[in-house]
């Protein structure tokens, strides 16, 4: 693409903030670490200097009140963005997210909506352990009323953030520190309607369907490249919008390939991969499956700290590739 701007995933997020703050006076951002260089990577550098500390608010250590204030400010006509630099700490804010933001529209008969955007960062690895590593997107995808967004690409990091903030509904936008070094040349910004966004095919093949979201999509893409060299061609579907989840593309792909491997950076039980397997088993025509659908997820255990255990814990390009070959051979992953 000519005339585009080179971004990495982190600066793409920052460019979305700049766009929103420039264009919409009702946008403001609050959360912990926003005036600090080390909380949110390169995604918010110097926004406070450019747009002022009235609009870029580094808050007290109060996740619940801060998130609730975002919910209330949205009801009052603002477009707040609440930042949680690490998803684990956001659990203090569950009432504001799950009881208030998610339910407001329905509770009041669709007459008001809390258009707050809650940005949650998955920040794991590096021997950080159980309370500094969680990827809880499936929890939030379980809640009617929340839109849950996970950008896997540089373009989506920017464009889905803008779409989230422009959306009248509450959105949980989840980005992943493991993606921050991805780079791409981006075209000029065009606003998108989040209600019209959904899963996207990011690689086309015929032997097997890989489905992921966020960093899992990146793993699937890398594994698909390796598998291609081994003569296996894969559809790779990036979920992008986890809730409400549009099943159409996944069903179409699995009906074609007859084989499914869902990859997820969350836990197995009641997780996002389980949802993908469920919707396929409900919708794909009988006889269309050539192999048992499978899921590659975190094991059902908290994140370890020790490096050796971490390597076992997280899916990798290698483990995705191995799992894909097992599925193709008709085996199971257990």
């Amino acid at each position: 693409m000519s005339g585009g701007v080179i971004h990495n995933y982190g600066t793409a997020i920052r460019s979305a903030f700049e766009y929103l703050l420039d264009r919409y006076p009702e946008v403001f951002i609050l959360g912990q670490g926003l005036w600090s260089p080390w909380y949110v990577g390169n995604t918010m550098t110097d926004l406070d200097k450019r747009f002022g500390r009235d609009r870029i608010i580094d808050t007290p250590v109060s996740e619940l009140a801060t998130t609730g204030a975002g919910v209330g400010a949205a009801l009052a006509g603002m477009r707040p963005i609440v930042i949680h630099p690490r998803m684990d700490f956001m659990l203090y804010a569950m009432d504001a997210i799950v009881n208030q933001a998610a339910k407001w529209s329905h509770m009041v008969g669709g007459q008001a909506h809390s258009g707050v955007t809650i940005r949650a960062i998955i920040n794991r690895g590096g021997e950080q352990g159980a309370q500094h590593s969680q990827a809880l997107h499936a929890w939030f995808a379980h809640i009617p009323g929340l839109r849950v967004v996970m950008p896997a690409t540089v373009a989506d990091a920017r464009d889905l953030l803008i779409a989230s903030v422009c959306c009248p509904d509450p959105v949980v936008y989840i980005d992943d520190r493991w993606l921050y070094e991805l780079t791409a040349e981006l075209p000029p910004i065009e606003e998108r309607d989040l209600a019209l966004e959904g899963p996207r095919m990011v690689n086309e093949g015929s032997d097997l369907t890989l489905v992921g979201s966020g960093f899992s999509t990146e793993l699937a893409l890398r594994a698909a490249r390796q598998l291609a060299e081994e003569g296996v061609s894969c559809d790779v579907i990036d979920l992008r919008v986890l809730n409400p989840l549009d099943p159409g593309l996944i069903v179409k792909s699995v009906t074609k390939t007859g084989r499914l491997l869902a990859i997820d950076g969350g836990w197995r039980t009641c997780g996002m991969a389980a949802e993908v397997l469920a919707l396929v088993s409900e919708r794909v025509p009988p006889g269309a499956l050539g192999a048992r659908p499978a899921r590659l997820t975190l094991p059902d255990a908290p994140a370890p700290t020790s490096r050796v255990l971490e390597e076992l814990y997280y899916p990798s390009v290698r483990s995705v590739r191995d799992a894909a070959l097992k599925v193709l051979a008709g085996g199971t992953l257990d």
Partner: protein
Amino acid sequence: MIGPLHMLGDLADPSKHQEDLEIEGVAPDTLVSWLRSMLSIRMVEQHLAAMRREGVIGGPVHLGIGQEAVAVGVSEFLSPSDMVFGAHRSHAHLLALGGSIHGLFAEVLGRDTGLSRGMGGSMHLWDQPNGFYGSVPIVAGTVPLAVGAGLASKLRGDPNISVSYLGDGAVEEGGVQESLNLARVLGARVLFVVENNLFSSHMHISLRQPSDSTARFAAAHDITSEVVDGNDVVAVAGAAERLVGRIRRGEGPAFLEAVTYRWLGHVDWREDIDVGVARSAVDVALWKARDPLARLERAMVTAGLWSGEMRRKAASELETEIASAWGRAAADPWPPSSALLDRVYARRAGSR
């Protein structure tokens, strides 16, 4: 300034403060308007209690009979562009702003014409055109939301304020402490109104907190506060006028503790004198003698502003209005079945 060991003293003693209100200096029209508003709220809630007892209302109703003076006194200084947030016991908060009795009844009956279009019932009320942004039954759930609304006003530089109604139980939630601190640090234009009726659902405040005065938390967060007899509408209004004025001038958040008592139990029509500790029939009787409505009415009769005949006429008109509103609400349509899914998001996915 209220210190951390501040106690309510006489304000929490139902044998005190039973005298007629001091109404000198308040405009007669204002007094009549307060009296009518309190009477209306009480009769509406008495009607709801009766209908719940008869089983006509399907869901729980949390009634605030005996607490009417708080919402009426505070609302005197609010306009429809202000942003009021309530909790589980919020009928009075809504009605005192001018909310529709029919809209409330239709909501409690789950009808499409209800204030929340039949999706909320008694515990999830919405009347934004009158400044009532919403109430929810999660204790303290709306307190941070009100801070955010008050922050929005500050960021926009408009004079509107938000009001957070909460109870003495809610201050035990961590989110309230966070919210007080956040409001103070960010200069949110919010008035916290604690209706301290001395009880959480079933436990007296003496069993839950080391002091019976919640205003000590305002002091801890350097927020200006006043503590008043919540059964004295003149006192509530006086404090509200001062505090609302401060907030509108951009002098930061404020905190009003209004000491009151609910005549009925936590939920529905019963008095609940057999649950909890220190809620005795004797206390309930004493608090009924400290009636915010009767104390105002007696003072107005003495001043020649009100009479038994006026009371009978006002009550009779309200009875007619309530019966008519209830009759219409009970005949109103139910929400369509599409409401179940159509109201989850502003727009359903894939549709414009």
